[in-house]
């Protein structure tokens, strides 16, 4: 009992901070989401119920944001993980210049999101003076210019996905190169003595051995992509609804502080919906990774 007390005393500072800054606000968000027309200034609300949720779910801006978010998640998470795996495999195969390439690939990670956004503008944005570098390339091959930033939806989504993949790639490469390096060389030697071909070594030895890391990257990748917002702002500015490129987090932000802001109840309801989605997907991911627990 005495020991118990001591343990709780040690935990107290962390619990206090977590309670005040994480748990209490979380509960508050849940409460707001059921209070209709909550007002921060007067701390009043007009009623309770599920109205906030039904409003948000019927709001075309929200359904657009939901659609955008899902497209980004479904395209970027598998693609970025697969690409990162390919690059990490390549890196592990070249003994020379490995460090140089590792640094090059890691640069986007230490670069500010907005700075990367600027670089993408130069590549993709159509201005009065230039159509952007990508369009110059397209023109060179005889194609017509596409307005990637202010044009059709698929063009904007394409740039968005390339941007997102580019931003998340370095971290995944880093994790996967170290995962590959941690696979003991003797497994490969044993496989070589048995005459195992490269592809079989990859699918039967390398992949299962680094599977825990891949699962980790997929789970955190899903969570990160669902919470995307700043990347969209870097490319399309703060008025994401007008650009049709809003995300769920962006919608929450707009409902709180944006031009149409001042609706904490709707913002809370949207946040709770996002939480439910992320929670469900993460649970499915964890279940899948547990079921295929390899060793």
């Amino acid at each position: 009992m005495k020991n118990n007390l001591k343990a709780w005393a040690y935990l107290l500072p962390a619990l206090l901070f977590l309670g005040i800054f994480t748990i209490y606000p979380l509960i508050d968000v849940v409460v707001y989401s059921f209070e209709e027309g909550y007002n921060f200034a007067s701390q009043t609300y007009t009623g309770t119920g599920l109205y906030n949720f039904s409003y948000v779910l019927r709001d075309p801006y929200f359904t657009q944001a939901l659609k955008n978010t899902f497209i980004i998640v479904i395209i970027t998470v598998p693609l970025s993980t697969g690409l990162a795996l390919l690059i990490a495999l390549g890196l592990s195969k070249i003994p020379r210049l490995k460090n140089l390439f590792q640094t090059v690939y890691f640069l986007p990670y230490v670069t500010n999101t907005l700075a990367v956004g600027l670089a993408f503008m130069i590549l993709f944005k159509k201005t009065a003076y230039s159509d952007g570098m990508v369009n110059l390339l397209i023109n060179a091959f005889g194609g017509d210019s596409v307005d990637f930033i202010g044009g059709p939806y698929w063009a904007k989504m394409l740039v968005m996905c390339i941007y997102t993949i580019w931003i998340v790639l370095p971290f995944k490469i880093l994790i996967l190169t170290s995962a590959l390096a941690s696979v003991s060389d003797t497994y490969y030697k044993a496989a070589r003595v048995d005459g195992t071909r490269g592809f079989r070594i990859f699918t039967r030895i390398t992949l299962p051995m680094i599977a825990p890391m891949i699962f980790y990257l997929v789970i955190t990748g899903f969570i990160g992509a669902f919470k995307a917002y700043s990347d969209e702002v870097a490319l399309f500015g703060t008025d994401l609804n007008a650009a049709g490129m809003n995300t769920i987090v962006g919608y929450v932000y707009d409902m709180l502080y944006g031009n149409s802001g001042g609706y904490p109840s709707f913002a809370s309801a949207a946040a709770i919906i996002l939480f439910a989605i992320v929670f469900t997907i993460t649970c499915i991911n964890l279940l899948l990774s547990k079921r295929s627990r390899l060793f």
Partner: protein
Amino acid sequence: MKVVLEHLTKKFPNRNKKVGGFVVAVNDFSFEIPDGKMIGLLGPSGCGKSTTLNLICGLEKPTEGKIYFGDDDITGLPPEDRGVGLVFQNYALYPHLTVEQNIMFPLGNLRGDKKLTKEEMKAKALEAAKLVQIDGLMERKPNELSGGQQQRVAIARALVKMPNVLLLDEPLSNLDARLRLQTREELRRIQKETGITTVFVTHDQEEAMSISDMIVVMKDGVIEQIGKPQEVYDEPANLFVAKFLGTPAINVFEGKIEDGKLFIGSDRVLDVKGPADGDVCVAIRPEGFVVSEHGNFCCRLIAREVMGRDSSIVAANDSFIGQTFRAIISSETVVDTSADEIRFDLKPAKVFLFDRNTEERIPFSV
């Protein structure tokens, strides 16, 4: 299948780039391994024994020299075309596969007309598992097995393709003492049953002596001596081999020969015929001492250690190279432990003379 190594040399570029040049891991290694025999490569760490194993296996390419399996020159062949089975020191079992899948793994690599059906693979895996007596553990994962069981799986995996040559890298070093005894008998049994030419690497002389048909003692990439274990023990070619074999280690004294008499210090310990007069190294096996009241060899008694079956006398002598030496005597021998002095007679067969400079053996007769 017999294995012939011809003038095998392996050089590695020096790690320290400033020094440059090469490190010679294996130097002009020539040796013929007879068909169906078990050979122990023995030597201290860094003597090139593992490199030799890797050369036979094909994981390393020799800088010079040739390797033959039977009459076929396989020097240029990759490991998979040589028909070798290799058991790694840490077993290298795939942790995500079951025992059965591990054993079947090499069979899954077969292509063309050698390709096996799932049933054939399972049957072969079971056969190999039965040979090493792990057929009851087929569904387990490696981390659910003890060290000894893991090793059996590794051996089964190496044997499942019925290799021409089985190679074992430090097969017993990851096992505890009791298991080591059991496993080495197992290894011997499996080798006898399959009749596969087997080469294993070890730094443990007891391990090598107990199960090999022949041992190869190596030092700095060079063969020091090849022979049947007992022969090498009884007739060491040089001081290194004499020192390397036997526990407790052989005792080396400074001595000299005058008129066919061997002296250690001022004690005239043996009459020897043959060698010329001069300074020599005298190496005496611990079991070469006989406690005797009127013995020729006089030493200071330090302690008597009782070990049950026999006991060891710890003694000192000014001519001994080192601090104290050990003599193994039967535990029935009465020794006055209160005395400062102890006298020995020497068994001539357990005494070896070596040249002080070349450390080569000097033969003598009594």
